[in-house]
């Protein structure tokens, strides 16, 4: 029986007596327990290595506290923008004895990363938010009213819509960084060739889509689940026909209305003339399709035009064999038209928030303020060539807007004051932000356009979905 309770080592060493090569289960458990205790002791709090920044065991400061700052932000659609910002951040760090790390990830992936950080109460000091995301994490953000108010006073005041994104509960929880203006990008050469007029109303836009389709250069607008393009087109489309998800009180659901029905019905009419596949489009899809010469028009920020300018020489060569290829000379821009209920837009916005767990709040505030100073910010605007638009009125006359007349509509989209926020005419709220994050308004149109539901059924489904958020 004793023999049966023993395990024999499979790698016997010939020099040792046979007895010593046996590993009894008692020895195995003792060794295992000893190793576990040793490991636990090694990992225990008493043996935690001293932090790189903090104090030594004797209490002497090793390195001055607050010497590092980390930031999470999106990967810019104009990569030159990221390169400029990263270099500026590193230079600012050197000047101020702060090690600055900026991490860029796909904007669609920021909520997942942020969720983990907020739950763990650890992560980057500064996070860049899109649209109304600050409303989703107000308790994880520090109040930055002091620097936001100061910047507002210094630089001509903030645009109201971007301000609304950053003030969940009244105080500033994020500092606006920029808009990225959304306008109609269209092929001037094809519009001229087919004698297609620019739309002055949303009904004109439908006629434009039909004419472009007939000419073989269709209109294309994203209807998928992605952070910008679907929202910046379909929210204003709904408002332009008089539709709205909620009343002014921000609680009473108002989606089921004749105005919404007209908006959805006309969306289906336009969709039937649009390029195929837009139900699955994300923010990159229309850029690719437009630059490849498959689209006559789409709503977008300045990234399409910027890419065409960067690739100008190549594109002009390619165009000789493929006339559909878009060159900078072919691309024009105009603001979106008004609807019967007025002129509306949803201008995409970025803001920077300081997280509640940050140990370098002072450095983080200095960093955010420094980034908005005209000597830095104007250079940034020049680098991204109209993609970003200043959130402060002082930047309305930034030098970049005089460099190329084709980019002026991106500024006009902001200055004309047509921009609202998800959930309008209700106030910005956590509920309206959740509705946006669940793409309920986008799916209102997508379900009808795909043929899954009739316009009326689609409205009923969306109104039902809204009830979960507006209580």
């Amino acid at each position, binding site marked *: 029986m004793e023999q049966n309770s023993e395990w024999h080592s499979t790698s016997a060493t010939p020099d040792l007596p046979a007895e010593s090569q046996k590993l009894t289960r008692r020895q195995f*458990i003792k060794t295992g327990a000893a190793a576990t205790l040793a490991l636990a002791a090694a990992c225990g709090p008493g043996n935690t290595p001293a932090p790189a920044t903090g104090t030594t065991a004797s209490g002497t400061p090793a390195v001055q506290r607050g010497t590092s700052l980390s930031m999470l932000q999106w990967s810019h659609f104009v990569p030159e923008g990221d390169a400029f910002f990263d270099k500026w951040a590193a230079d600012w760090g050197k000047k101020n004895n702060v090690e600055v790390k900026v991490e860029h990830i796909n904007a669609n992936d920021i*909520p997942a990363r942020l969720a983990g950080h907020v739950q763990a109460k650890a992560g980057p000091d500064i996070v860049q938010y899109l649209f109304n995301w600050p409303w989703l*994490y107000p308790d994880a953000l520090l109040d930055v009213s002091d620097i936001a108010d100061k910047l507002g006073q210094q630089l001509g005041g903030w645009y109201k819509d971007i301000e609304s994104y950053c003030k969940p509960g009244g105080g500033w929880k994020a500092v606006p960084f920029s808009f990225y203006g959304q306008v109609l990008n269209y092929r001037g050469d094809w519009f001229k060739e087919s004698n297609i007029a620019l739309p002055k109303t949303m009904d004109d836009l439908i006629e434009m889509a039909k004419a472009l389709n007939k000419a073989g250069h269709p209109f294309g607008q994203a209807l*998928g689940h992605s952070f910008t393009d679907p929202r910046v087109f379909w929210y204003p489309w709904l408002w332009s026909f008089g539709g709205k998800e909620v009343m002014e009180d921000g609680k009473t659901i108002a989606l089921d209305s004749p105005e919404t029905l007209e908006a959805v019905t006309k969306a289906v009419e336009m969709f039937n003339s649009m390029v*195929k596949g837009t139900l699955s489009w994300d923010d990159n899809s229309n850029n690719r399709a437009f630059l490849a010469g498959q689209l006559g028009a789409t709503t977008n920020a300045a990234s399409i035009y910027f890419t065409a300018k960067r690739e100008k020489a190549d594109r002009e060569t390619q165009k000789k064999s493929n006339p559909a290829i878009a060159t900078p000379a072919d691309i024009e821009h105009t603001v979106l038209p008004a609807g019967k209920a007025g002129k509306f837009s949803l201008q995409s916005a970025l803001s920077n928030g300081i997280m509640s767990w940050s140990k370098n709040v002072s450095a983080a505030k200095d960093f955010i303020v420094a980034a908005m100073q005209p000597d830095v910010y104007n250079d940034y605007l020049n680098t991204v060539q109209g993609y970003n638009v200043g959130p402060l009125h002082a930047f309305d006359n930034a030098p970049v807007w005089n460099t190329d007349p084709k980019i002026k509509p991106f500024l006009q989209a902001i200055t004309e004051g047509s921009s609202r926020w998800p959930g309008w005419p209700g106030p910005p709220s956590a509920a309206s932000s959740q509705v946006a*994050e669940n793409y309920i308004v986008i799916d209102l149109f997508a379900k009808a356009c*795909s043929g*899954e539901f009739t316009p009326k059924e689609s409205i009923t489904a969306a109104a039902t*979905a809204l009830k979960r958020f507006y209580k």
Partner: protein
Amino acid sequence: MALEKSSARTVSVALPRANVWQRFDEWLDQERVLGYVLLAPALILLVIFVAYPFAFGLYISMTDSRIGHAGSFIGLDNFQQLLDDPTFRQTVANSFLYTIVTTIVKLVAGMMMALLLNRAIPFKRFVRAAVLLPWIVPTVLSTLAWLWMFDSTYSVINWLLSHYLNFQGPMWLADRLDLKLGGTSILKTTWPMIAIMLVNIWRGTPFYGVSFLAGMQTIPEELYEAAIMDGASAWQRFWRITLPLLRHVISIVLLLSIILTLADFQIVYVLTRGGPANSTHLFATYAFQLAVPSTDLGMGAAVSMYMFPALAIVVFFTLLSLRKED
């Protein structure tokens, strides 16, 4: 012996210590005790990484927790609300359709693959290794490649269909499919659902194939020789020998595959993110959608919890069938 040579004082101290160790050894020597001691590490890991998260998830699902807020207990409200949510009802239907269709196809294709690989074919070892590639490559990477192949602008599949067969392929990640027979709809679904099922089948079939192959190689050759002597056809040999002797392997492979498929996340997240218009959500992606971007942790956890009874039933019946066979 060393103790006997020591001084009397040393002996009086060392003996009780030796007794303690001896008693410990004797205690440990009992099979009943040793069994639990050996089980303990695995049990501790299971409690920390499976039981605790499950219990915590169950608790979260009965709260109105949001990201950054602990929330308060609301009983079964989240579960009730989900029953009224049309997207959730579609998610349940999608999850079962996805699991049933892909499991059946993977089972048949995997069996065919194993039968083929079990024969003497040229470059047998190379082929066996090569067919495993879809299973080995990280899912996110291979699904990104599929995303490009299904892309509405640059789909290589549609390009091949159009250039070589003069056939206009569907918008793989957008179009609806309404199959009609004599003017009557016989199947209504979406191409995105078909696309995610195709990728799952492509990725999962090698797992079935290689597992079945391993099972086939344990079947004694004499059984087949005897069957041939008795005049059994290839189909009879498969039906009477191969299949019955593979039952255990098939049960285990099905169990693992159903669990993994019903809880699939990566393929859907990369290809469609649950769209268009929430038409391709599975349990895991809808739970993520509600819990993370929408910050509604309680509701997301409730979606996940709905998956549990389905999985429990599958596991119960599979284990029951294995027991019966034993």
